[in-house]
C-alpha cells in the first residue's frame, strides 16, 4: 500500500509527540472516520462522540502505530471500536428512536418524503450489524475484509450479513420500488 509522503511525515512527527502533526492527521481522516462511526451508531451525535473518542485513543496509542501502514485504516478500526462501545452502552433503542435518528439534518430536502420515510423505517428494522455492513459496503465502499476488521467479525460473516441485509431491505421496500 502506497502511503502519501505527507501522511507518513505527519504520522512520524505525531509518534514523536508533535500535536500539530496529529492535528494534520485528524484533518485528513476525520470525515472518513465519521462515516465509519455513523454506519455503526446511526445517530449523528453518537458518531461525533465516537470520532472524538477514537482519535483521542489513537493519540494515546500513537507509539504503537507503524507509520509504514496506513493511518486511515488504523484509526478507522479504533473509531469503529469506540462506536461499538457506544452501541453497547445504548443497546436498548426502539425502532421509533432509530427512525427519528435517521432523519439527518444534513440530508437533501428535495428527496421524495415518503420514500425516505420508508427507507428510514426499513433500515431501522435491520439488525444493528447488518445495517452497519450495508452502509459501509454499499454506501461507503469498504470491502468485506475491511468491514470485518472494523467490526471484529470474519470477512465471510460480513459478506453473509450484507447478503441477508440486502434481501430484507428489498423485501421491506418492495411495494415502493415496484
Amino acid at each position: 500500500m502506497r502511503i502519501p509522503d505527507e501522511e507518513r511525515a505527519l504520522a512520524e512527527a505525531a509518534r514523536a509527540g508533535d500535536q500539530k502533526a496529529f492535528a494534520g492527521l485528524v484533518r485528513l481522516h476525520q470525515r472518513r472516520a465519521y462515516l465509519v462511526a455513523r454506519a455503526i451508531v446511526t445517530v449523528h451525535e453518537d458518531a461525533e462522540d465516537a470520532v472524538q473518542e477514537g482519535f483521542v485513543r489513537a493519540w494515546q496509542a500513537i507509539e504503537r502505530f507503524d507509520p509504514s501502514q496506513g493511518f486511515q485504516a488504523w484509526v478507522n478500526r479504533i473509531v469503529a471500536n469506540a462506536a461499538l462501545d457506544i452501541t453497547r452502552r445504548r443497546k436498548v433503542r426502539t425502532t421509533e428512536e432509530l427512525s427519528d435518528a435517521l432523519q439527518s439534518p444534513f440530508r437533501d430536502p428535495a428527496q421524495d418524503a415518503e420514500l425516505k420515510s420508508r427507507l428510514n423505517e426499513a433500515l431501522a428494522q435491520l439488525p444493528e450489524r447488518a445495517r452497519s455492513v450495508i452502509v459501509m459496503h454499499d454506501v461507503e465502499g469498504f470491502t468485506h475484509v475491511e468491514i470485518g476488521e472494523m467490526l471484529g467479525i470474519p470477512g465471510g460473516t460480513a459478506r453473509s450479513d450484507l447478503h441477508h441485509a440486502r434481501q430484507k431491505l428489498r423485501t421491506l421496500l418492495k411495494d415502493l420500488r415496484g
Partner: protein
Amino acid sequence: MADELKFPTDGEKPDRDSLDESLKALIRDAYAPPDGDAYWSGLEQRIMARVASESSADSSWWTVLAPWGRPALIAAAAVFAIAGVVNQQLVDSDEQMAYDSAFQSSTPDVVSTSEEIMSVERGADGATISYFLSH
C-alpha cells in the same frame, strides 16, 4: 464528496447482488456527513482540545514526581548501604557468639574431668587402690 471517499474494491468478486443505484443514493443521503468546513474545523478543534488535556493529564503525575526522582534514588542507595552494614555486623556478632559459646562450654568439662580424677584418687576408692597396690 461521496466519490472521493470511496475505497477501491480490488480483490472482491463482481457484486451481482448489489442494491440499485437509486436506493444506494437514498441511503448515502440518509447517512451523509455534515457539510461545510466550519463543522469539520470545529470537530478538529474539539478533538485536539481533548488530546491536549489528555496529554497534560498524562504528564502531570510525572511533572509532580520528577523533582523527587534524584533524592529518592539517593535515599534508596543510602538505605541499601545501611542495611548492608547492619547485616554484616549481625553476621560478625553471630560468629563471635558461636565461637564464645563453643569455647566456654568445653573449658569447664575439662576442668571438671580432672577434678573428678583427683577426687577419685583422693576418695575411698583411692584408698582401696592404694591398699591393693601396697600388698
